[in-house]
């Protein structure tokens, strides 16, 4: 059974002030296998974040169905860990409490929470920062906390919405390496939204290239380059050229950009 089954999903936003409908996603059908690392790649406004939000349960499809592990998605839940574009940590809680936030809400004792958090803090390389507050950490470190928080729930799938978008180039490359390491070590299904071609090709086992107006999947490309991936290799460039050709012509400013925010 596929980890995520998206069948014939459409999303239509109603523009109330203009009384018109905007088709954000049109008849999307994707099947994500267990342990697959799928990157959703597309220009802004192609509905890739909307699709992710619907898998997470934050939004509902206008038509079609989404199932995770055979269960139809009705609402957000701990079986799907989300890593947000901005870490969205609780600023009043120290790092370890944020990592174990799932356990706090499910009523675990402090000692257990602290112990469970430590393993994941070590895994994302934040040992020694357990008692720091989010405001005392850099953007990259906050994202690591967000990743550790999602991993601790031991979810069926992890959904990541441009988690490294706000980071500088160097930090982003470090985080990509880390993420691949964690994914290999942890095993799991990841859906990763990005608008960076290099990022998608560096991370994914598959890249779904999307087009905008209306949002559709153009092609799902399996990436079987060896890891760690060499972003200067001829094979990498060949794939990049292919994706660029797919994306070309999608650059015109889209009315959906407003909707997608």
């Amino acid at each position, binding site marked *: 059974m596929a980890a995520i089954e998206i069948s014939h999903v459409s999303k239509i936003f109603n523009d109330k002030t203009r009384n018109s409908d905007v088709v954000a996603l049109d008849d999307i059908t994707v099947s994500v296998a267990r342990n697959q690392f799928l990157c959703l790649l597309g220009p802004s406004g192609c509905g890739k974040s909307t699709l992710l939000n619907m898998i*997470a*349960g*934050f939004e509902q499809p206008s038509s079609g169905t989404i199932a995770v592990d055979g269960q139809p998605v009705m*609402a*957000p*839940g*701990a079986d*799907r*860990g*989300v890593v*947000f574009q*901005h870490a*969205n*940590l*609780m*600023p*009043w*809680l120290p790092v370890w409490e944020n990592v174990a*936030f*799932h356990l*706090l*809400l*499910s009523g675990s004792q402090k000692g257990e929470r602290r112990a469970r958090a430590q393993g994941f803090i070590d895994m994302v390389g934040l040992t020694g920062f357990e008692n720091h*507050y989010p*405001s*005392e950490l850099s953007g990259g470190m906050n994202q690591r906390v967000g990743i550790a*928080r*999602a991993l601790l*729930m031991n979810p069926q799938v992890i959904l990541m919405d441009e988690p490294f978008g706000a980071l500088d180039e160097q930090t982003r490359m470090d985080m990509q390496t880390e993420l691949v390491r964690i994914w290999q070590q942890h095993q799991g299904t990841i859906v990763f939204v990005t608008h960076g071609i290099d990022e998608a090709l560096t991370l994914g086992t598959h890249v779904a290239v999307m087009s905008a107006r209306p949002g559709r999947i153009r092609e799902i490309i399996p990436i079987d380059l060896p890891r760690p991936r060499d972003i200067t290799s001829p094979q990498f460039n060949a794939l990049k050229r292919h994706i660029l050709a797919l994306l070309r012509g999608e650059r015109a400013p889209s009315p959906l950009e407003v909707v997608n925010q």
Partner: protein
Amino acid sequence: MSAIAHIRKLDRTLVPILVLAGWEAFSRSGALPAALLPAPSTVIWAWADWVFGTDGNTQTYSGHWLIDMAASLSRVAAGFAIATLFGVALGVAIGWSRATEIVIEPTLQMLRPIPPVSWIPLAIIWFGIANKPAIFLVFLGAFFPILLNTIHGVKGCDRNLIRAGAMVGGSERKLLRYIVVPAALPSIFAGLRIGIGSAWMLTVTAEMVAVKSGLGYVLWDSYYFLRYDLVLAAMASIGLLGFLSDLAIRMVMARVLHWQRNTTLRGGA
């Protein structure tokens, strides 16, 4: 640099000292009859007797200060506690649920512009001359700032934090308890600080009219007996207690909101 540091060190005490010295000099100059504007030294003399019973110059109030202070303080504490309880609970309900807001808020917004002191006649006929009307007025005065600031704080809670909470599997009740209320705390504390100021204002007003004890009663009673030194001592006592209760709230706030230390508290008081 050192000159500025010097002024920094001085500036907290400089103005009060100058004011007191000028006032003392003016009172002793005889421009006004001494009884109408008692000098600070006279006020301190009366205050000392009121507090410690030094020479009995305040007659029946000699050594009575602690009891008067405790009477006022207990009214403030009771009214403020009730206002905090209702203000925060109702504020969270209104801020969180649109339905509650539609049902309750218009009524509250109509009651809000009515000055709490205008309730005094009704408070007296409902509760008589005792603690209850004063506590009722304190409640009215502190309730609205706490309520409005709580609503503001709850509504200002970042939607993305709530999403993050829903993602880790929180029920609505848990999201309120672990995300919305903590996120609203800075705003709630702002409401509490405004509320404690109103609380003292209304305690003293109530004691002048509807109660026969407390600092406000001593103040008004001394006015009838032309003891303006005692009036001023009572005013100073109220100012001191108001300052101390605000300080207490600020200390609790600094503890509870210690995670904010790097962002907001440093520049403030």
